[in-house]
């Protein structure tokens, strides 16, 4: 088993929202699996940490939840993006892109001082 990276502070919420945006309704386990898969199994996600994050997003109104039945007939809670959530994705994506762009410029600068 190779070294896996921990989830960066503050990015879990955005990953959750982005996952729900592309997948539509999904239960907690599904979200967790999906995040891992999308990261190409590079991220090590403690599934437990997902739930307080989901609760926080729900309290903030970015997502809503509803009980439903999973693909293999289990009772599960499904999460769905709201309008507030979509706005939040836009905002946080912008922020994130800006941050990475700045950081990228710094990294380039140190590699190539010319």
């Amino acid at each position, binding site marked *: 088993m190779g070294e896996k990276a921990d989830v960066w502070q503050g990015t879990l919420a955005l990953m959750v929202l982005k996952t729900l945006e592309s997948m539509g309704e999904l239960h*907690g386990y599904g979200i967790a699996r999906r995040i891992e898969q999308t990261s190409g199994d590079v991220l090590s996600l403690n*599934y*437990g940490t997902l739930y307080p994050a989901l609760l926080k997003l729900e309290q903030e109104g970015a997502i809503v939840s509803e009980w439903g039945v999973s693909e293999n007939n289990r009772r599960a809670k499904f999460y769905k993006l709201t309008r507030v959530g979509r706005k939040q994705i836009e905002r946080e994506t912008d922020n994130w892109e800006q941050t990475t762009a700045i950081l990228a410029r710094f990294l380039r600068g140190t590699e190539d001082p010319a």
Partner: protein
Amino acid sequence: MKKLRAALRRFAGMFSRGRREEDFASELEGHLQMHIEDNMRAGMTAEEARRDALVKLGGMERTRQAYRERGTAPFFETLWQDLRFALRQLLKNPGFTITAVLMLSLGIAASVAIFAFVDAALLKPLPYEDPRSLVDVTESVAVLPHANLSYPDYLDWKKMNHSFRSLDVYTGTGYLLDTPSGVEPTQGLRVTDGFFHTLGVLPLLGRDFYSGEDLLSAPRTVILSYSTWQKRFGGRKEVVGQSISLSGMPYTIVGVLPDSFEFAPRNTVEFWTTMHAGGGANTCDLRRSCHGLVGVARLKDGVSIAAALADTKAIAQQLERQYPDSNRGQTAAVESLTDAFVGDIRPILLLLLAGAGLLLLIACVNVASLLLVRSESRRREIAVRGALGASPLRLARQFVTEGVLLVLGSSLLGLVCAVFTSQALLRLIPKDMLVHMPYLRGIGMNFHVVCFAAAIAVMAAVIFSLTPIVQLSFGEMREGLTEGSRGSAGVLWRKVGANLTVLELAIATVLLVGAGLLGKSFYHLLHVELNFQPDHLATLSVALPEKVYAKDEQVVAARRQLMDRIAALPGVTSAAATSQLPVTMNGNTEWVRFVGRPYNGEHNEVNERDITANYFTTLKTRLIRGRFFNADEDATKPRVVIINEAFAKLYFPGQDPLGARMGDTTLSTKSIKEIVGVVDDLRESSLDEKTLPAVYYPADQSPDVYFNLVVRTSQDENALLPTLVSTIHQFDRGIGTSEESTMMLNIDESQTAYLHRSSAWLVGGFAALALLLGMIGLYGVIAYSVGQRTREIGVRMALGAQREMVQRMIMREGGRLAALGIVVGLVCSLGVTLTLRSVLFGVQSWDVGTLAGVALLLVAAALLASYVPARRAASINPVEALRAE
């Protein structure tokens, strides 16, 4: 926005915790099962699949905890837990809780109710624009610190002063108004043109008086009070511009005052008219020596009352030099309008507030000592919780929560009681007096009062939270677990508790001394020498219409006929008339001068009354020398005067005044009168004032259309009043009657008597409650001490101590505390009662009888309070006491 929403949902989450956790458990369960199934599909064994799923999920308990913390607001949740625990604790000890809540709410109710009055009367400014810069302006003479202004003086003051932005005057007057049900006397106020402008009041309808509209040359105009507009004119807007007839003169209505307008000294006024100085038969306005006006002024910016007073006094001095005849000894008085309006009740209200405050303090002390006893018995519980890991902060929070809860409950109960109490107190004020205290109208729970109550609550909460925390200093906490370790703490508590009791008893002493002095002072007031018999006297004000009775002879004839008719009524033994009823005031004064005596221009100021011949016999006032007036002494007979004894003593010391002649300051021929009699000092002034020298003139020699009837009857004087009114109206429907009352009622409900009575009763009530609470406190301390010392007492008895000795020992402990409390209290009351001086009448503030009586009462109360626990101590069974621990 997002954060707020999340916070709200977390807060709300506190209340649906159980359901949410159940939800989460099944969500996690679903998660696990799906994961296990996936793992098994990937080829793991059932056990491997389960273990992997659990590992991936992380610690289940930690997940749950994180979820729980996110789901609620932890601070509020602990608070909620503490609250529930506190509530359970309080409910578990209903005796403690009920006593504490009752005592505290009693203290809160008393002080908040009194504060509502203080707020209404002293703190809430007058309902005028910028009331701080409004002042009451009057003249001042030796015998009357606030004497009225004369119109010429007013004009000069207005012209010469540098302190007032504006100065206006007013004076009361009566108008006879024609109504469908007959003539009604109504009250009016004559004011100068800028009166409402000075107060900063705008009419609701119509306009204010124009500048110059108060001159004699201007047409007569009137502004209606709101209630008159509603009551007499049906609230119709068209009244503005209409003409009405007041005492037979036409007036044009130019405006209506707003409902909120009030003018405390003359709040029954219906018609506000302009001055029209010198109009009609009114010659008083034009004379500099005739004083009938009160001034109200607005100070210029930055001018203090003291500066305005100095300025006005300087003008008065200048006028004194200019007009030595009329203005000798006339100086000025300027005080804030608030003081002028609420003056006499200020010291009494502050006194009551202090009394209520002391009662509150006793209540707090009692509750605090109850809390001490209780925290003492909870030592073990606290120690256990501490040992189980509760942080000191958390334990302290528990006490704060309990204290706050206790105070909250008591405050709510106290506030409700305060609302009822203040309404009840308000109802106790006679209606006639309430009219002159319009500021009490809106009394109730306003912002100030609620703030005051909140301040008390915060203070009490701090005391009650700190008391047990300090008591259970946390270093000691572990000791609580070991057996029998409460000895040292018990001693500590006994010391604190004992000191609190001394404080309580001292406060009770102060309140009792105050109540005793006020009670004694009220007794003196009611037993002040009246020099007449006030029972079985009916009184009534009469106004003859000036138009009909225009000539003096007509007035005299009408009054004689009227008096004859009244005297003939069944039950009536005697009927008389006077210009001013007894026991009302010093005032309506006159300057006199004696024929044949050197005169330096000094004003000999005396009360002046016009009376009918049988006035003194009706009142049953003693004649000391000479004779009473004869029934036929009118303008055709030589002018005569009767003086009172104070007059004789002051101006005829050691001489016989009979036959002496006196007159006005210029000794004008028509003013010369001969003294024919000396009567006892009939009480003309209000009860607590000194009676001034007085002169009595025959009413028929100076007839007036306004007079007061005094009728003595052998039957119930109240029952006579309707008959009196109907008799007068049978005589002439145009005669106005008002203020039907009885002499006893006049005296009993006079402002002076009322203020003394109510303050005596209220402070007495506070004192009685304080005594009761003090006794409970003392009992509590002694009983607790006996409880703590059970073992010691058992040992003593086992060693042969007699029961009486034990009882005496306990009683001695109580006696020592009581003695200390009483001594401290007596010393304090010496200081406190000095401030009472201004409201006391006929009693020294250091009244030995009262002090001794209070001390005796307290000793008896203290003995009673310590007797019960002493008895219990004496009945301790030594064997059981030794086994008990």
